């Protein structure tokens, strides 16, 4: 951090909320983010999508301004406004020209303290979301991502899409949103991030006022670890006869963010499929076999559980061969682990590429939002490299063996099944369904 000359100002308020300010960036722009440490995992059953809709609802108008007036004001400042939920956090982001930073802060404050949640706009937003979901059904890749996530997270508070489903969005009422705003979010800790080419002292004083109206945060409830409840491996094939390419997703239960072995998992994922052409999956499935344009593994480590998902696509006639090649790559990787050279190169990648990860204010914001969400310090971001350096081959092998277990994998394939279904018939728990019957 010292080499990069980053000197954030962190102000801890008596109410336990926080301000984080940093002069950063090349262009005369400002970014303000209000982070609330509660996300879509708080959605009540049957009303999935509530937190995300609440966050967008904040941007639909205030007591003083209609949606039209509010949005016009922000966009006239060269800005954009976004309210959205993630897992374990929600945020309100406003960005615009640096010369307008004071105005941006005033607008953010008004949105946060005086939202109106106008009934008509909420209803229209729900309708838009329903249309967007239908649009999404036309895209087998996006549908595959949504469906495998639900399969992987079954039995945990994360087992639904952040934006909700066709069924759940219809169930959300204005009262639910107002209740969330009055009862749920005030119980959470908030942090206001300011990243601007230059953050001035006078602005910080003003910012303190902005946060002064928040009620005192009383500390976090203990949340127990959760485990996906899917008992065993299953393969779900969704048949869409008009496709010439199949979507393949394979998911495994993985580690939560608080697990001490998080950095081992990070390195393991890079070596398996997160590291592009340096990964085993890319080497075997694309470079050697030419089955796909892209294959990758990615992991999500959340507050109480996690998952690792392998994603690819391949022409219909190579669907089974691709699936087999993935399993064979996993088997070799878990048996032998990475080579010494692979491991050293992966560590070097993380060490040397670090400045590239935080080059722009938006990139740095993404990193520090996650740090804050999982109760990590800003400095921890810079200590990751030292942790990665200490990891050895045995640790990688051991975590690979623990996570990449065939008997725990969830498989989803969307494609023209008549060309490959026979190859899968020997698998237990195989289910075939028409794609058209699945609702987003």
């Amino acid at each position: 951090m010292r080499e990069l000359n980053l000197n954030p100002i962190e102000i801890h308020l008596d109410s336990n909320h926080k301000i984080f300010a940093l002069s950063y960036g090349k262009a005369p722009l400002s970014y303000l983010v209000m982070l609330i440490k509660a996300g879509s995992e708080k959605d009540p059953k049957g009303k999935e999508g509530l937190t995300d809709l609440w966050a967008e609802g904040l941007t639909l108008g205030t007591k003083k301004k209609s949606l039209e007036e509010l949005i016009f004001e922000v966009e006239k400042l060269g800005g954009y406004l976004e309210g959205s939920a993630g897992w374990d956090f929600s945020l309100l982001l406003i960005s615009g020209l640096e010369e307008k930073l004071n105005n941006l802060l005033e607008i953010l404050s008004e949105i946060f303290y005086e939202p109106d949640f106008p009934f008509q706009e909420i209803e229209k937003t729900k309708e838009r979301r329903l249309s967007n979901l239908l649009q999404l059904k036309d895209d087998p890749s996006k549908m595959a991502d949504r469906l495998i996530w639900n399969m992987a997270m079954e039995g945990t508070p994360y087992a639904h899409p952040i934006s909700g489903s066709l069924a759940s969005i219809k169930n959300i009422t204005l009262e639910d949103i107002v209740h969330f705003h009055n009862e749920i979010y005030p119980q959470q800790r908030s942090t206001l991030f300011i990243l601007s080419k230059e953050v001035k002292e006078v602005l910080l004083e003003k910012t303190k006022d902005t946060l002064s109206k928040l009620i005192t945060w009383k500390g976090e409830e203990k949340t127990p670890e959760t485990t996906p409840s899917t008992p065993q491996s299953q393969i779900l094939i969704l048949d869409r006869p008009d496709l010439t390419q199949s979507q393949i997703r394979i998911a495994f239960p993985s580690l939560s963010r608080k697990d001490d072995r998080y950095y081992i998992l990070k390195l393991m994922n890079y070596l398996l499929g997160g590291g592009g052409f340096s990964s085993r999956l890319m080497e075997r499935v694309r470079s050697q076999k030419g089955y796909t344009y892209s294959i990758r593994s990615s992991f999500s480590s959340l507050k109480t559980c996690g998952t690792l998902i392998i994603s690819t696509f391949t022409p219909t006639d190579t669907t089974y061969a691709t699936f087999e090649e993935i399993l064979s790559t996993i088997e070799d990787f878990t048996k032998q682990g990475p080579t010494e050279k692979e491991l050293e190169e992966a560590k070097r990648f993380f060490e040397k590429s670090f400045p590239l990860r935080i080059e722009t204010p938006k990139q740095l914001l993404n990193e520090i939002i996650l740090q804050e969400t999982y109760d990590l310090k800003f400095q921890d971001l810079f200590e990751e490299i030292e942790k990665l350096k200490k990891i050895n081959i045995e640790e990688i092998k051991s975590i690979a063996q623990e996570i990449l277990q065939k008997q725990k994998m969830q498989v989803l394939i969307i494609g023209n099944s008549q060309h490959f279904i026979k190859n899968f018939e020997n698998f237990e728990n195989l289910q075939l369904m028409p794609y058209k019957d699945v609702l987003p």
Partner: protein
Amino acid sequence: MRELLNFRRYILDNGLKVLILEDHGLPILSYQVHVKAGSRFERPGITGISHLFEHMMFRGTSKLGPEEFSKIIQSRGGIVNAFTTQDHTTYWENVPSDQLELVIELEAHRLKELKLDEESFSTEREVVRSERKMRISTTPYGAALEELFSLAYLRHPYRWPIIGWDNDLRNLSLKDCEEYFRLHYAPNNMIIVICGDVVPEKALDLICKHYGDLTPQECFHKIEPEPPQRGERRSVFKKPVELEAIFWAYHVPGIDSDVIFPLLGICECLSGGKSSRFWQKFVRAGKATEVRLVADPPPFWPKDPGLLILYAIEKPGIPISSLENEIEEEIRLFKEKGPTENELEKIKNRLKASFLRSLESLFFRGLVGGIYEIKLDGFEKSWEILEKYESLKAEDMIQVAEKYLHEDNRTCIMVKSISIEENAKFGLIE
């Protein structure tokens, strides 16, 4: 803003242009090789070769195995990739600044010692066909957009997709690739950009050392100009989709025209952000899922006359065809009165902020310099971008709308939904 794009230009004896921009903010740099080799330099029968060749550049050299180039860069903390457009192919590496010599050496090496063999070629061709399916065949409207371009252009090479027709991809040969490489990958047909933590003189010495011995060659390619459109063209594209859509394309000038700025202003006024007219009138009002008028901002705006594309995606229960008149009415209103004063201020600020936001990254700054140099023979033109946005005038926008956004200059495709069973009679989209 000029300091963010203040490159130094050097030209080697063999015609290779080099742009260098110093910025020592972080210990990183972006290294880019821009080659005048995009789909506009292709011909029917070899469509997609520029992009396929881009893939072949990663398949090994006399010393390196397939994809080893990328692995080496990654092992030194870098990120590497390439992309092909209608007008150029760009290879890039974003790396820690102490890896500059390695990158220069590797990039020059693959130009001199590229290994093109049948095995790699067959593997990579299948990879590209898979990419084509990902981008075109399995997306809701990809194939319809392809048809829009081939209907809007009768002669100009922009009429075929960058990724190529599937049939051409199947028939391309290694010999075609060798020929393409010989014709286009000459030093006088390339621009190298280095942007970031670099000492220009040292970097230039390294470039001379590794690229100085490349031989220039004549790179001549005649581009068939597109004749003016003489009346509206319409077509229907049937496929199974949940939501029907319409796509309109208007012919507009290339990047060398100042008209692109008022055109971007019109796009911004009609569909930029939630305060835009289309969003308020159609999306917020629940009449459509999406309605947008879009163009690629500079430096991505095409070199030759391009297309401004308007698309509308239906809201379930409201046929998209019923919106056509309302959309036309919005365009007519714009032509009549232009933007309000408030809208004009918003348009200017949004366009400026969006461009400034992209300049936060060295990679993008390198692209602006390199692509302006390749398309307009001068990165200095990019200094004017913010100024052009700032000086937008309502009357210019009205005049430009009158000139280009009219029926005779328009090509329309309607995407109509059919059942899976009905789709079977058309066969699969490859």
